[in-house]
């Protein structure tokens, strides 16, 4: 019998707000332990939470971007459990009445478009971090760092609509694109600003029943997500084929060994004793505000790709590359806005710009989109040659200097003086009689070499079109 996996993902996205979910502490990463704390996020006696409005706005943005219904009234709930990184002994989350419900996103996997349902999206606070002294199994003490405690998270729960590890990866990448384009989350899985747990069960292909599921944790990259699900699918298939059965449990993925192993059984699962958070009033959101947020939603990656291909006549591939992150896309669009033709802008951004960014990092880029547009204009008006333009681009990239100034200072202005070029061409022809003979004997390729020699002699400044014309003219004599 052939089996198929049934997968649902629970994704946690850390929201990029300045302050925490329920207090005014900074969310900035990398401070010394417990520097970003106050009585509220330390869980001191007597403190009360105050909801961060920005978190609500960001979550509503996500809900709208994933076609969810935004609840007019939602409530917070306490999830109770003991752990040293959880200062209050409960996490403030949402349970029965989340802020967003019933949405979907469209993914493409194996060339096929599919809709994955979103069950719900809710807000909750993060816990702190434990640092164990010495080796884990022989550690005598642990340190608690509560900088991360109360940092806002958004949990996105999918329907069990995912049918393969590839689809899970595509879904995850789709969510990443959405949060990054909304500007509400870094989307960095390795650093943990985007995290994911998976529920997976198997069933005979075509069946509409559900098998017993296992929950998989600790998959902190797209690659590990797929690897863990592939392993777990095979494990469950093997179990069933051997007349065994899948146990409902939580399993941990070990990325070194590429396997999942049991963490805790259903019997050991916590009873979180959820109940409505009495320290917060129900969150009421008016339709006007939701509409306002909807109007302010930035263009999504899919919309951009559609526009680049449709309006700008770029290839699907170029559109994909240019939108791989919103910073590049914005840069590209500003080059176009600066007067460059989309195709030329695309070539320069995907070529020189992305190459230099890759080498030196985006922080090193001093060049503005307007400068790129200007350099493109210089090439198009034949004020500089293509190769000179690359040199100008590189210098402006490094220094941010005015391209015109760079052209002038380096003497890169293209020579379009026919007499001067004719002189140079003649000199090259005189210096290379053998090559001239070979061209005349029919070796067309030699022309390129001769053009190169002229360009070299003029330090790239000669107008290549003119060089070509004059070369052909003199050679045909």
């Amino acid at each position, binding site marked *: 019998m052939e089996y198929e996996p049934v997968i649902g993902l629970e994704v946690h996205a850390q929201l990029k707000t300045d302050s925490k979910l329920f207090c005014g502490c900074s969310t900035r990463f990398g401070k010394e332990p417990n520097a970003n704390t106050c009585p509220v996020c330390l*869980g001191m*006696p*007597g403190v009360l939470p105050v909801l961060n409005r920005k978190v609500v706005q960001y979550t509503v943005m996500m809900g709208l971007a994933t076609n969810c219904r935004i609840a007019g009234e939602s409530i917070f709930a306490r999830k109770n459990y003991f752990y040293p990184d959880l*200062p*209050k*002994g409960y996490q403030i989350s949402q349970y029965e009445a989340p802020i967003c419900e019933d949405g979907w996103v469209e993914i493409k996997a194996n060339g096929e478009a599919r809709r994955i349902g979103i069950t719900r999206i809710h807000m909750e606070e993060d816990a702190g971090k434990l640092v164990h002294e010495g080796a884990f199994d022989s550690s005598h003490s642990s340190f*608690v760092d509560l900088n991360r405690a109360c940092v806002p998270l958004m949990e996105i729960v999918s329907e069990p609509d995912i049918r393969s590890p590839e689809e899970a990866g595509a879904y995850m990448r789709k969510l990443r694109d959405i949060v990054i384009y909304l500007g509400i989350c870094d989307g960095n899985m390795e650093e943990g600003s985007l995290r994911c747990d998976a529920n997976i069960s198997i069933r005979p292909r075509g069946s509409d029943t559900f098998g017993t599921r296992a929950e998989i944790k600790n998959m902190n990259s797209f690659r590990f997500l797929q690897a863990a699900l592939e392993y777990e699918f095979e494990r469950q298939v093997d179990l069933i084929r051997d007349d065994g059965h899948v146990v409902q449990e939580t399993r941990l993925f070990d990325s070194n060994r590429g396997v999942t192993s049991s963490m805790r059984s259903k019997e050991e699962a916590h009873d979180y004793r*959820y*109940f409505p958070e009495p*320290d917060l009033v129900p969150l009421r959101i008016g339709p006007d505000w939701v509409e306002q947020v909807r109007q302010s939603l930035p263009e999504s990656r899919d919309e951009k790709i559609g526009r680049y291909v449709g309006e700008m006549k770029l290839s699907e591939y170029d559109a994909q590359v240019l939108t791989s992150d919103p910073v590049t896309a914005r840069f590209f669009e500003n080059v176009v806005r600066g007067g460059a033709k989309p195709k030329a802008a695309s070539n320069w951004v995907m070529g020189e710009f992305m190459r230099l960014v890759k080498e030196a990092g985006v922080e090193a880029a001093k060049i503005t989109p307007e400068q790129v547009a200007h350099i493109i204009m210089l090439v198009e008006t034949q004020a500089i040659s293509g190769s000179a333009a690359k040199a100008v681009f590189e210098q402006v990239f490094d220094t941010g200097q005015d391209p015109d100034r760079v052209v002038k200072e380096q003497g890169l202005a293209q020579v379009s003086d026919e007499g001067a070029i004719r002189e140079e061409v003649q000199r090259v022809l005189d210096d290379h009689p053998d090559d001239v003979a070979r061209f005349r004997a029919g070796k067309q390729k030699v022309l390129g070499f001769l053009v190169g020699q002229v360009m070299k002699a003029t330090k790239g400044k000669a107008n290549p079109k003119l060089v070509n014309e004059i070369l052909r003219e003199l050679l045909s004599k």
Partner: protein
Amino acid sequence: MKLYNKTIHDLHEDLKEGRVSSTRITEDVFQRIDDVDDQVRAYLTLTRESAMESADEADERYRKGDFLGQLDGIPMAVKDIFMTDGVKTTCGSKILENFIAPYDGTVVAKVKDSGAVITGKVNMDEFAMGSSNENSGFFPTHNPWNTDMVPGGSSGGSASSVAAGEAICALGTDTGGSIRQPASHCGVVGMKPTYGRVSRYGVIAFASSLDQVGPLTRDVRDCAILLKAIAGHDPADSTSAKIPVPDYPSLLTGDVEGMRVGLPEEYFGEGLDPEVEELVRAAVTILEKRGMKPVPISLPSTRYAVATYYIIAPAEASSNLARYDGVRYGVRYPEAKGLMEMYKKTRSQGFGVEVQRRIMLGTFALSAGYYDAYYGKAQRVRTMIRREMDEAFSKVDVLLAPTAPTAAFPIGDRVDDPLRMYLSDVFTIPVNIAGVAGISVPCGLSSEGLPVGVQLIGPSFKEETLLNVAYAYEQERGEFPECPL
């Protein structure tokens, strides 16, 4: 009259006229504490030094004529449930025995800003769970009227300190009667305002949806003064109401002519001590003399209030008290071998019997499979009780009932019988469940010479009405006997 036995408003007049200094009053109160607190045991922590500094500052302001209001320079006791910056704040629990609060709660900050002189932190039932102060993690407080008796609880230290002249007024909290019941037992005025009237920020939480801060004072005017100082919206407490605070003291006219006072029959039934009933009914007659009309009324859901309370309050408490885990502050069991043992030993040794009982009750009530039958149902009954109360206030202006079924009982009498102890609050609990306001005013002495209070209950955010009826009653009642201590 001794300075320590005077009211806020009288002392304020004296201070204003320069007849006395805050330093004198404060010294007098501390002298009184030195004289009687070994019998009453109201205080857990004295803040003598900072109090004398505050008194000095108040005197300076009075000298310049720019005093901060009627509370300026007045010695005040603060229940140990309030976070008080730099001062030991235990909530009556061993688990916080060594805990110095790192910030001032909103109410403490407000009374400090009003110039009040904080004399110290007073005793209470551990985490406000109790009706006799016998659940204090440290020692029981005694009733100043008869030191063999309990002062009531959980704000027993607050009530007894005011009754014994160990403070001019006090701050308390009331989750199921914790201000009104000890006020009744100690012969002082005690008010639980409407839920949301006073900020809970910096009040160590027992049951978040029921807890409310309120004043304990010598008379109704003082109560109005103190309530005015502490009430109002607080951005740090999302459950505090954005409703303007009336100037309560100036609204005390004593004119209640034609107002209707409802007498809910369910509050005058089984379990009510006949002597208490007689004194409370006499209070109705006094209000009638002022032109109020008694109206018989029925609140049938009252009988479910105690059961509802003992689901909701422990459920919230089980969660609120989870933070006392020995990890970040408070007492930690030192020799634990691992995390689980640290949690278990810290909490079973740090918490007293009653607190542990309620954590167990609440944990059970919220457990998977029991939630709907207990917590869910309790919330539905709560809605019913609230509606019934709201409906009653469409017919009457205030309700009148006993505060407690009996006068103060002997220390040790009910410690082994939690159910009987819980019934001490049978008449006060419905007010918290409904979220409305209630006040206890002394209405007489029992044959044993113990004070008895009458409870007036008013609609949400109508404290001014409630205070005015209480004020009219107090005027007509006349001077209340002084505590014999």
